[in-house]
């Protein structure tokens, strides 16, 4: 398998603080993977995703996405990635269709192609009959689903998901997780995913990196990680074993 993302010695420092948000991280993500970045609050997950999306400039290190160097080829990389931020990054007073039309046009989608893409995803996520409803009238779970669709409209090769199921009910969470799996399997979209839900990550991810304080503590498939940690029955046990049980800010 060829790597679609290659990160080498990545460092991110904020200001003059000695403590790095990301400290010499090296990792590879294979094409077609669902890759989980797991870690407690402040571990550096969002920083890594922000660097990969071109939102944050790395202090040191190299990042290549689909063979393109991040700094010099950012515009090309932006065309092949989709981003689903932790926040509900939608306009509340606009309808689902208006929101998705706007975000689709940012990727130069238009006309029938855009219309079909919107309808396809709304059908998949059970929101086709809510197409003309305003986002502000939706439940948290419905907003999360639209938030996800907005990142998928332009058929990205890589989808970055920053805690896509945070704060929603079990039903919406299940729908999202199942669809992510289906998108990955049927369309071959590589998914980079951060979460606090260990069970969800164990079920969804083909590969995982557990990070804390900007360092990778462990990596591999959930099955491999469980094999390497005989004393743990679940991914959550491994996570707690590696990151400790102390409270994080």
């Amino acid at each position, binding site marked *: 398998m060829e790597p679609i993302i290659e990160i080498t010695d990545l460092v991110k420092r904020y200001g003059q603080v000695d403590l790095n948000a990301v400290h010499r991280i090296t990792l590879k993500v294979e094409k077609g993977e669902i890759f989980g970045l797991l870690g407690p609050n402040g571990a550096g997950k969002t920083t890594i995703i922000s660097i990969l999306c071109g*939102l944050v400039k790395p202090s040191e290190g190299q990042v290549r996405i689909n063979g393109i160097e991040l700094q010099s080829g950012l515009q090309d990389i932006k065309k092949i990635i989709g981003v689903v931020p932790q926040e509900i990054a939608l*306009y*509340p007073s606009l309808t689902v269709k208006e929101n998705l039309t*706007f975000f689709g046009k940012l990727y130069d989608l*238009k006309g029938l192609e855009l219309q079909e893409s919107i309808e396809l995803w709304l059908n998949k996520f059970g929101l086709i009959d809510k197409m003309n409803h305003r986002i502000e009238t939706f439940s948290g779970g419905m907003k999360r689903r639209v938030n996800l669709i907005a*990142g998928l409209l332009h058929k990205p090769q890589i989808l970055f998901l920053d805690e896509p199921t945070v704060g929603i009910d079990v039903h919406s969470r299940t729908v999202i997780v199942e669809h992510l799996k289906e998108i990955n399997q049927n369309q071959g979209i590589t998914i980079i995913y951060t979460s606090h839900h260990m069970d969800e990550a164990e079920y969804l991810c083909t590969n995982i990196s557990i990070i804390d304080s900007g360092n990778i503590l462990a990596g591999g498939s959930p099955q491999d990680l469980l094999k390497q940690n005989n004393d743990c029955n679940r991914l959550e046990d491994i996570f707690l074993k590696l990151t400790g049980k102390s409270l994080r800010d």
Partner: protein
Amino acid sequence: MLTRLFASFYKEFLLVFRDYAGLAMLFIMPLFLIVVMAVIMDAPFRDYQEAGIELVLLNEDKDTLGNIIERGLIDSEIFSVVSKVGPENLDRSSIEKLVKDGRFILGVVIPKGATEFVNGKVDAMISSTLSQFGMPIEPKVNAKGVEAPIIQIFLDPAVKKSFASTVTSSIKSFTAQVETKMIIQGFYAQMTEGAMGTQEMKGGLIEFEEIYPSGALSKNEKLFTNSVQHNVPAWTVFAMFLIVVPLASNMIKEREGGSMLRLIVAPGSHMTLIIGKLLFYVAICLIQFYLMILAGIYLMPYFGLPALNLGGSIAGVFIVALMVSFAATSLGVLIGTMFSSYQQASIFGTVINVVMAAVGGIMVPLFAMPDTIKFIGRLTPLNWGMESFNDLFLRGYGIMEVLPEVMKLATFSIIILLVAWKANKNNLMTQ
């Protein structure tokens, strides 16, 4: 690029037109502002002739001087002269009381014998003058021993000193006219033995003409400043600059809500989307402008004010309005980029606008300010906008004459946008 630009424009359109309270703020409040400002600022802008100030007069003289002053006050149309208040006859103390109680801001008492005294003085002066030329004549009236009459002017303590001076000067002017007339008529009477003595002498020797230098248009039309001509364009510029608050808030809301993040991670320049937003708000500003202009033309007469006169250059008006809109929205983009919270942006946006309006001559004419403030005021875009409209609306100028101010507005907008672009870039890449 165009798809993204139009998408951004249309998105802003939807966002603004879905927010009814915001719409009212954008369109109704500015209209309300200019109507209120034009109405309340009307009095200081009207000259005394238009104001028709009520004056209570007691003419005890009832002779030439008293009658001429009374006639002069009435004919001047500066004052609405009242000679009777209630059933009782007026006297000196009742006039003082009427002014003291605030029922009148002005009271004038012309004392008995004023004409007789002036006649005596004039007669004595003519006699003395002619004696020096070997033409001794006896004065007809003996002014010796006649007490000099004092014309009393009662003024409400609340009136401005400048107003008091104007009234006193007017009455002094009438008195001087009467004295001059009496002297000339007296000389004529003595020199021609009465042949010209009764001939009416009208007006002074020197005539005055008021000239307001202005463009070609004013040859056919009088473009005088009045409350509407000054306040509508001035407060319109102020209201247009208030766009900085909703625009900056919109940008901050987008950033806080996370949708800005989607805009940044999308391919293409983020500036395209900002320009789409900017163009939409420029359009909003232009709609605001024309609504306020229409209010100036059609609504003001309902409040007893004159209709706004746009001058002769419709194209000039559009270009100035466009550049003011551009400057205002550029400032909004900068504030939206620099500040991290809605509270900061709204307070800063409002305060900077009020300060620029204050020093820029929107609230108080620039000529009445100290030199330092004048200098600063002339560096504000609100002043450039207002001066351009004054050139067009009051001075009857055309596009060429307003071009320097238009260029200043354009340069300001471009510099502000470049600063915003740089700040935005730094915000993104230094995270």
